[in-house]
């Protein structure tokens, strides 16, 4: 019996799960149509989500060699341990190590604009359904967000092993993109990422911003102080702080790259802030980061709008 190839993964969990993705999206639509479950689909939003998913496969083919080469090179030249693919404990270790790496990859993808550039795509839908899970970036290989995973190569996990576990994690995270499941059993909610936890992550309500970064195990968020339970009194509103006003898939895929480039060109002296600062950072404070939004909301600013309380000044011409 030959040993498994440590570099090229023998199986691709995402490819294997693709028929399940298709069948379950179909099921969610049909069951929602029949009134059996809680799910909302809008045609153009669904087209963008699924189109992004399809395009991410092509992007992986075009640019995947960048991260693959780096991962293999680090493993071949710098690994500290020799971890066998055939040992059961190695798979337990890679499950935990990959999930921890995912937590930090995901957290940095929200907290640094240079990585948010790509991850923003996944959050750009105002819907939360199984098709949203497939709204994947086209540019993830280009901004180096995968570099967190080099730690796993450095530790000695074979590239094939890491690739398989990353696929398992991605497949796990598919089913949690739904409003059809309200809560899992308490023990499950305590340990694992669930639809409820991940709805919080996709919400744009101030209290929910930059929370619940987990992949499979929610324990990382509990450990690092980023856990936020879903609150019945605060229904999730999905999407971005500034939602997109377009279904043009090219704009959806590249808008944040273009916006960052514009900021850098307009304010070259502040380029580092616009690249490596948190999303929403600006040199003159004219925009808001998540931290600023949360601080304002905590101070009560969000609950009161003087405009909402004022009498209408609606010229006759404005009557709708």
């Amino acid at each position, binding site marked *: 019996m030959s040993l498994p190839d440590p570099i090229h993964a023998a199986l691709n969990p995402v490819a294997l799960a693709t028929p399940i993705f298709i069948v379950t999206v179909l099921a969610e639509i049909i069951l929602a149509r029949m009134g059996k479950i809680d799910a909302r689909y*809008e*045609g*153009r939003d669904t087209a963008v989500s699924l189109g992004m998913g*399809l395009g991410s496969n092509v992007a992986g083919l075009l640019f995947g060699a960048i991260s693959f080469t780096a991962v293999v090179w680090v493993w071949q030249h710098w690994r500290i341990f020799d971890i066998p693919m055939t040992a059961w404990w190695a798979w337990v270790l890679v499950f935990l190590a990959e999930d921890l790496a995912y937590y930090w990859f995901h957290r940095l993808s929200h907290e640094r604009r240079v990585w948010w550039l790509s991850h923003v795509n996944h959050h750009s839908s105002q819907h939360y359904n199984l098709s949203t899970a497939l709204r994947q970036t086209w540019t993830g290989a280009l901004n180096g967000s995968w570099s967190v995973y080099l730690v796993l190569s450095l530790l000695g996990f074979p590239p094939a092993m890491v690739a398989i576990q990353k696929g398992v994690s991605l497949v796990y995270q598919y089913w949690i993109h739904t409003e059809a499941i309200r809560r899992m059993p308490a023990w499950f909610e305590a340990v694992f990422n669930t639809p409820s936890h991940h709805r919080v992550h996709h919400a744009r309500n101030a209290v929910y911003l930059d929370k619940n970064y987990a992949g499979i195990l929610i324990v990382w968020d509990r450990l690092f102080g980023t856990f936020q339970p879903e609150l019945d009194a605060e229904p999730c509103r999905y999407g971005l702080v*500034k939602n997109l006003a377009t279904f043009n898939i090219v704009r959806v895929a590249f808008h944040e790259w273009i916006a960052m480039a514009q900021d850098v060109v307009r304010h070259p002296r502040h380029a580092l802030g616009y690249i490596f600062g948190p999303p929403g950072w600006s040199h003159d404070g004219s925009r808001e980061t998540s931290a600023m939004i949360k601080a304002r909301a905590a101070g009560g600013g969000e609950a*009161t*709008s003087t405009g909402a309380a004022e009498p209408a000044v609606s010229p006759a011409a404005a009557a709708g």
Partner: protein
Amino acid sequence: MDAGFFVQLAASAAAVGVLVAIAAWAKIARPVAPLDEHRARAILAEEFPGRAVEAVWVASDGAGALAKSGGLALVVCRVGDGFAARQIPWPQAVSATFRNGRLSVDLGDIAAPRAVITLPSWPPKSFDGDLAA
């Protein structure tokens, strides 16, 4: 290059087409009533917390709204079964192209390039003096 990849890609593309068609057929988007002034102000309060709104112009078809808030115009436009909002300088809104009852507002944002708001007339008489501001 693996031929299997392209077979799977083609099959996935076909599946995407079918799923999008079924999602559109199912008509299970969120029900969105046309905006009235109360609803427009509620959205403005949600999108621009703390900003004082001096006046609101709601689109005739209820698909958007424009508000004056100091030196800013707050713009809300319908996107699918949701809404997006942006703020631009008030003079930019006042000087936006108005033709055939449609106000076309350049939002200056790659992710929200333009909002079209149907209005009986534009700019408003009581505020057009701000154009020089």
